[in-house]
């Protein structure tokens, strides 16, 4: 396999084998604690690649969380997640199938994305809208992502639809009736990061066409994966250039200019923790806005976990792939650092944490009792009711 272009574009040639990446990698840390002989090593993957080998059988390429923690630490600026992404897509092109291990929910979502890419569906996904005000054309679009499907695939675990409802409720209160696409398709993030570039492009073209014909100037989305994909990857792969903001940035804007107000200060103060989603924080460097939003909510006090921002571990699973006891450990470590409520700004983080709370038999009652909640839900609950 010719690795030259891959090594070139991701600057892997400048790796000095210092292993800062491995020291920072959440997967390496958790796997080392579980089994000192094994363990994940981004450095080893790059070293091998520089010798012209790509080892896709040991799982090194397929296990990576692509959380970008390593790249932020790298003194030589090697884009390791980018390397993994391109290697996966290369392996899939040349050897039919890679070793993507999806959970049952993840494989359903993956097939749903395939269906959306292959077929000309007329989806019925708007049930969640109810009495909320949405538009067909306009300047601001709310990109819902897979939220309605998460509720159908993980019915016992999450109700991510409420995130979309809260966001549209807040937007309505701010006098905006956002455009919502009745036939929106998956943004393709998971397909892009598990090496199915063709499916990703098919999805991206569909969304780009739909969004551009509605005269949209700005996209708001609650999902950091959609955020990254629409903002960085769409312009790279398809003809698309629209401003994209994450809901945390949008909320922080509305709060700071006084468009949305909160109910009076409650008597009790609640301490909460915040989980930085990898796509929002480590990929897109949005660290401050979600914290500003939490701190502006009366009665909430944010206490940082021991590892935060660029240093924080992600939720342990990306693209619903590779979930195992190492990933469970990452999540349990995160949950045990958290205070009574763990605020996230990513529906997928929420799914992964709640899934662990739901299925892990060995979990302590304290960890079990931690409430995992999205930022948008918190804001909507604390907001003053505008009539």
């Amino acid at each position, binding site marked *: 396999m010719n690795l030259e272009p891959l090594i070139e574009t991701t600057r892997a040639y400048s790796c000095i084998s210092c292993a800062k990446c491995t020291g920072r990698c959440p997967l390496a840390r958790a796997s080392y604690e579980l089994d000192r002989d094994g363990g994940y090593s981004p450095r080893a993957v790059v070293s091998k690649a520089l010798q012209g080998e790509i080892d896709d059988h040991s799982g090194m390429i397929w296990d990576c969380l692509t959380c970008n923690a390593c790249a932020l630490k790298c003194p030589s600026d090697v884009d390791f997640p980018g390397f993994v992404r391109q290697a996966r897509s290369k392996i899939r092109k040349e050897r039919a199938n890679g070793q993507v291990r999806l959970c*049952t929910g993840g*494989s*359903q979502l*993956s*097939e*749903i994305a*395939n*269906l*959306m890419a*292959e*077929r*000309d*569906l*007329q*989806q*019925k*996904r708007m*049930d969640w809208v109810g009495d909320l005000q949405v538009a067909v054309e306009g300047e601001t679009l709310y990109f819902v992502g897979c939220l*309605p*499907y998460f509720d*159908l*695939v993980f*019915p016992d675990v999450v109700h991510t639809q409420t995130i979309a409802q809260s966001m549209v409720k807040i937007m309505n209160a701010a006098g905006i009736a956002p455009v919502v696409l009745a036939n929106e398709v998956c943004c393709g993030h998971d397909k892009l990061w598990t090496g199915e570039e063709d499916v990703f492009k098919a999805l991206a073209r569909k969304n780009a066409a739909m969004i551009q014909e509605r005269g949209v100037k700005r996209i708001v989305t609650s999902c950091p994966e959609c955020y990254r994909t629409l903002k960085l990857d769409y312009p790279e792969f398809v003809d698309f250039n629209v401003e994209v903001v994450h809901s945390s940035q949008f909320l922080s804007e509305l709060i700071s200019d006084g468009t949305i107000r909160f109910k009076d200060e409650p008597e009790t103060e609640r301490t909460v923790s915040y989980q930085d989603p990898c796509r929002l924080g480590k990929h897109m460097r949005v660290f401050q806005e979600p914290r500003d939003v939490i701190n502006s909510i009366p009665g909430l006090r944010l206490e940082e976990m021991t590892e935060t921002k660029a240093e924080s571990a992600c939720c342990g699973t990306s693209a619903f792939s590779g979930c195992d006891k190492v990933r469970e450990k990452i999540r349990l470590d995160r949950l045990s650092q958290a205070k009574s409520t763990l605020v996230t700004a990513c529906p997928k983080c929420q799914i992964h944490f709640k899934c662990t709370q739901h299925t892990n038999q060995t979990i302590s009652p304290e960890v079990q009792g931690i409430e995992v909640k999205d930022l948008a839900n918190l804001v909507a609950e604390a907001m003053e009711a505008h009539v």
Partner: protein
Amino acid sequence: MTEPLVAEREPAAFVPRILAFSCTWCSYQAADLAGTSRREYSPHVRIVRVPCSGRVDSSFVLKALANGADGVLITGCHPGDCHYVRGNIFAEKRFERLAKLVLALGLEPERVRLEWISAAEGDRLAKTANEFAETIRRLGPLK
């Protein structure tokens, strides 16, 4: 004056592509019985043998639909008769969720079907397969 060499053909009739997941203990045996009793059924139904209807993950069905199937039939043992005691009950619960997904995706709910067919019911298997093939033929190809 030249005449077209090949007369214009009628548009090809729609040939439904139907995938069936049949449990090895009951309904796959029923298919065998249908065969040995010379009972004909629609050739458009292609059977995949699975150890239990409980083995059928919703993603199998979605994958079939994404890859060209026009309809998917799941058949298993009658409730209470499952070789693995509760596999078909799991299948039923999973199917309820799948049906909601299929609806949300905008597909006709009739494109997926769950049926209980025992090893003795060769006739019933043939009848179900024919009925299902007719339903899918009526719905037309999955766009």
